[in-house]
């Protein structure tokens, strides 16, 4: 047991080193782009370089984490440290649909729009308390598998499959739509082609490495997303209220 603990600690430290370097690289990349913009690089080229650099990065992580082992493919070997798993989950939370859709949704619907936020955050509580611990203890890979093993028979399993398809479908439609908009906006192709280009990128990133690749690309995305979320709101908060912590003060401007 002590050997696994020390092996896990080494794994954790290695990951922390990788992602610290990655964050530094990302900040340097943004600074280089900013300097190039000052020197007169056209906006469309900034779009191109940002899009392709990040896709290349995610594809690189995807190819590096390729695996043929079932446990690695479905559950990343069950050994993602909690901090990194939280970052990957956070990246899911802040994904394309939230990034593009939520601000507009809240602006349009007001208080009612917050139902989305409460719903998909509150859902994590149900998963954490009712499903995740038992899924892990039963050693299953998917929720329908777990329900089938726990309750026996195919009825519970079918309900699980139906729920999984229902949730994934609504989630994926919103995400794919977002991917299409971003791709067509950045590289100036029609929306329909942008969707397929985006899907090809996702396929490269996730198909070879399954959950292992997805988790490590999600951690990388988390770092970009959290920076991209925080800078604009902190900026606005300083401009409007003079205090750089928007969470505390935005009640004033409602």
């Amino acid at each position, binding site marked *: 047991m002590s050997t696994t603990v020390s092996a896990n600690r080494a*794994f954790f430290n290695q990951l922390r080193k990788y992602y610290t370097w990655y964050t530094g690289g990302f900040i340097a990349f943004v600074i280089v782009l900013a300097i190039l913009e000052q020197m007169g690089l056209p906006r469309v080229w900034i779009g191109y370089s940002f899009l392709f650099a990040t896709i290349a990065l995610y594809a690189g992580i995807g190819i590096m984490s390729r695996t043929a082992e079932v446990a690695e493919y479905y559950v990343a070997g069950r050994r993602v440290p909690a901090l990194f798993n939280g970052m990957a989950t956070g990246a899911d939370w802040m994904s394309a649909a939230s990034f593009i859709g939520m601000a507009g949704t809240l602006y349009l619907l007001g208080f009612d729009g*917050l139902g989305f936020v409460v719903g998909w955050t509150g859902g994590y509580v149900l998963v954490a308390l009712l499903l995740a611990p038992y899924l892990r203890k039963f050693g299953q890979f998917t929720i329908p598998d777990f329900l089938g093993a726990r309750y026996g028979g195919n009825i519970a399993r079918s309900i699980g499959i139906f729920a999984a398809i229902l949730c994934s479908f609504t989630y994926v439609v919103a995400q794919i739509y977002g991917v299409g908009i971003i791709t067509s906006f950045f590289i100036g192709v029609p929306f329909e082609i942008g969707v397929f280009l985006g899907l090809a990128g996702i396929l490269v990133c996730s198909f070879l490495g399954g959950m292992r690749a997805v988790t490590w690309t999600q951690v990388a995305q988390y770092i970009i997303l959290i920076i991209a979320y925080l800078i604009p709101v902190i900026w606005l908060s300083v401009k409007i209220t003079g205090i750089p912590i928007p969470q505390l003060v935005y*009640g004033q401007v409602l």
Partner: protein
Amino acid sequence: MQQTEKHREYWRRNLKITGILLAIWFVVTYVMAWFAIPLAEINFFGWPLSFYMAAQGSLIIYVIIIWFYARYMRKLDLEYGVDEGDQA
């Protein structure tokens, strides 16, 4: 595996903490939303209370619930000797 009295006690405590936390979750999620209109009258540091709860408060409470559950269950696992010993 033979279920001992100890296992049953572990499971009772597991169910109890899950029940308590889900009750908090229910109040934060549904009761707060149900009484959103009267609660909006209350001013909470510049926000209407129901708006603050939906936008930030409930999310903070959710995170605390998950953190507390993970910590509690980890202690319980160690206490009853069913820990898997795989955390860094």
